[in-house]
């Protein structure tokens, strides 16, 4: 079967086109003037400019982290654009006013904005090069009091909410990439579910990097008030380009008493070619705060793209009896590297967390799970269950597990399980003897390995994830 593993290079990236949009760039480089320029372009209030400048000044004191199990040439933060927006960018009264090129881009991605609005019942915020180009279903959501809009619009229309919650979960002092994002973020999604409201549809943001030599820095802020609930989906793609592009996003979730937020990601940024050239560097800070009692935050991620993934969607379990979940499938092939996992910080009493991580490595890829379970002194009766499974395909890849556990309360129960396995010749032969092709057999086995995580995804995404798994591993197994 080794020759089939070698054919891993056959993998094609289906979303590698780029669109010819007239784009408005800030000059390359990072300095205070660029931060001011971004803020001015967006006509932001003074408090936000001050916040950005605070973040930028703090950023200058930081060094890029070296602890991840990732290897890449140094990133030149002066050699990229920090602002790129498709122009012109008028206030859009309806979808008909969206630039036809932009609409064509999203159509090619299978995210026909207009179709989505008519047929799918999923509200979509489409973000191109960090600028929100269209948000659907706004009116229907407004009827029940749900706010779902671009971050810029939220700053204009719901300034107090943004001011209250921005940086309240991931402060700009949190880490190098969060500081960078806080200084230069250009747009993102904002979502507010008022008390007692079950959001009537799935909310979805679709991120697309288009412009060359441009970093993408968006922020997502989701607030679920007392007793509210929402399910949120995020999808990502980017063109094939020879240079590496930086994506440093921040996602903050806040759940008040009895609120629940389910956040699902299917990340398929361009992973680079078979030789490891090009691809997105994905340095993302995602964190949720279960601020209220009995609140729940659940992260589900399927990570198949990016040259480098550095990402630890985490939950701060502050409210008593709150629940944090992390379900992850991370697939790395060719020369991809992923260092991903989660942090569960137990503060409240009887808080519970579940971590289920499935890592799949093929080709020359390196896949690392890194997780922290921290039980504070106050977290009486806290419980965590962690399971990390790794699947290796071929002999040139690696799987690594770094679980950190810190327990300061002796009533806590913390369990950790880990396994590493391979697709065995026995399994493949068994399936083929029953009439399945080698490709179908390996896809079936890999999907079986991921099943518990896929079960956590909303239905449409689960189907997409399984299909993606097939494309990602095309030629990789057999």
């Amino acid at each position, binding site marked *: *079967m080794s020759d089939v593993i070698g054919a891993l290079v056959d993998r094609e990236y289906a979303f590698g086109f780029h669109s010819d949009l007239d784009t408005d760039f800030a000059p390359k480089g990072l300095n205070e003037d660029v931060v001011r320029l971004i803020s001015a372009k967006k006509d932001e209030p003074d408090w936000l400019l001050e916040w950005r400048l605070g973040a930028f000044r703090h950023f200058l004191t930081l060094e890029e982290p070296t602890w991840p199990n990732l290897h890449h040439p140094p990133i030149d933060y002066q050699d990229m654009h920090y602002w790129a927006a498709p122009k012109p960018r008028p206030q859009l009264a309806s979808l008909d006013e969206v630039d036809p090129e932009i609409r064509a881009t999203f159509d090619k991605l299978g995210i026909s904005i207009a179709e989505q609005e008519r047929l799918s019942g999923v509200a979509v915020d489409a973000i191109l090069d960090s600028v929100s180009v269209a948000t659907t279903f706004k009116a229907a959501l407004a009827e029940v009091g749900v706010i779902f809009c671009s971050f810029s619009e939220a700053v204009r229309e719901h300034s107090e909410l943004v001011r209250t919650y921005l940086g309240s979960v991931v402060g700009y002092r949190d880490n190098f990439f969060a500081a960078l994002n806080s200084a230069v973020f250009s747009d993102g999604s904002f979502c507010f579910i008022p008390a007692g409201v079950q959001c009537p549809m799935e909310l979805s943001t679709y991120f697309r990097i288009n412009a060359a030599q441009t970093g993408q820095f968006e922020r997502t802020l989701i607030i679920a008030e007392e007793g509210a609930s929402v399910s949120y989906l995020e999808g990502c793609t980017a063109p094939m380009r020879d240079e590496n592009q930086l994506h440093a996003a921040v996602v903050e979730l806040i759940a008040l008493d009895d609120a629940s937020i389910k956040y699902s990601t299917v990340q398929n940024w361009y992973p680079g070619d078979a030789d490891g050239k090009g691809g997105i560097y994905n340095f993302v800070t995602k964190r949720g705060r279960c601020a209220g009692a009995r609140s729940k935050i659940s992260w589900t991620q399927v990570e198949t793209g990016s040259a480098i993934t550095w990402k630890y969607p985490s939950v701060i379990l502050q409210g008593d009896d709150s629940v944090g979940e992390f379900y992850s499938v991370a697939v790395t092939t060719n020369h991809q590297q992923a260092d991903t996992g989660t942090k569960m910080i137990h503060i409240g009493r009887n808080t519970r967390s579940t971590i289920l991580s499935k890592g799949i490595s093929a080709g020359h890829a390196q896949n690392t799970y890194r997780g922290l379970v921290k039980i504070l002194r106050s977290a009486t009766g806290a419980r965590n269950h962690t399971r990390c499974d790794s699947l290796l395909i071929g002999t040139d890849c690696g799987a690594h597990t770094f679980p950190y556990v810190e327990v300061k309360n002796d009533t806590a129960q913390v369990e950790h399980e880990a396994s590493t396995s391979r697709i*065995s*010749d*026995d*399994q493949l*032969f*068994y*399936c*083929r*003897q*029953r*009439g*399945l*092709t*080698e490709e*179908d057999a390996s896809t*079936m*086995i890999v*999907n*079986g*390995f*991921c*099943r*518990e995580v896929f079960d956590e995804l909303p239905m449409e995404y689960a189907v997409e994830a399984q299909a993606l798994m097939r494309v990602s591993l095309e030629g990789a197994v057999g």
Partner: protein
Amino acid sequence: MLHIANLHASVAGRTILDGLDLDIPTGEVHAIMGPNGSGKTTLSNVLTGRDGYDVTGTVSFDGIDLLPLSPEDRAAAGVFLAFQHPVEIPGVGNMYFLRTAVNAVRRTRGLPELAPVEFLGVAKEHMARLEMDPAFLSRSVNAGFSGGEKKRNEILQMSMLEPRLAILDETDSGLDIDALRIVAQGIERLRSPERSMLIITHHPRLLDDVHPDRVHVLSGGRIVRSGGHELAHELEADGYGSTQVTVPA
């Protein structure tokens, strides 16, 4: 019919099958017995196309040369192997697996695929005959099954896939009396004028329930004796000693 002539198979230069000849006419059930290491499992692997063997000789099935075909193409031609050690596939539902297999085979036979509901109906009938709990369908393929459950699952797959040549590799080993009876009945039900079967076994007990048309003794990589059903009991009484041959260097 299955026609095997002068079949040789070796692994890393070590000869395992050494000029094996065997014919199984359509509709007949043949049994192969033999001591450990005589090449029984190698024979079933070579017939079903498992990688890792250097093979020469002739294996034809209904006039089709099987040796160049992939395992899945042989399965499509109607060759089925009930595994001695059925493999576990965690996370893949038994029902999904079985339906995928059944539909893969149906496609190659030009039959329409079975929709999930139709499939479920057929599967439940077969399971009832094998005294299997329908809950089996929702479990992962063989994962956490007992030895007897795994073997019954093999017979279930065989019944659903309706092969034209069924090879059973020590399906009876490790079974208790009840499981043995159920498996034997399952095999007996599949006996048909259109189907050939090759039962590989250590024990004559299974052959008391499933009366084979012919019994062959495999030793040193070839068939050294053939006879009727009574040969199985002769072997039970006398052992393989009188039939063993040494492998030429």
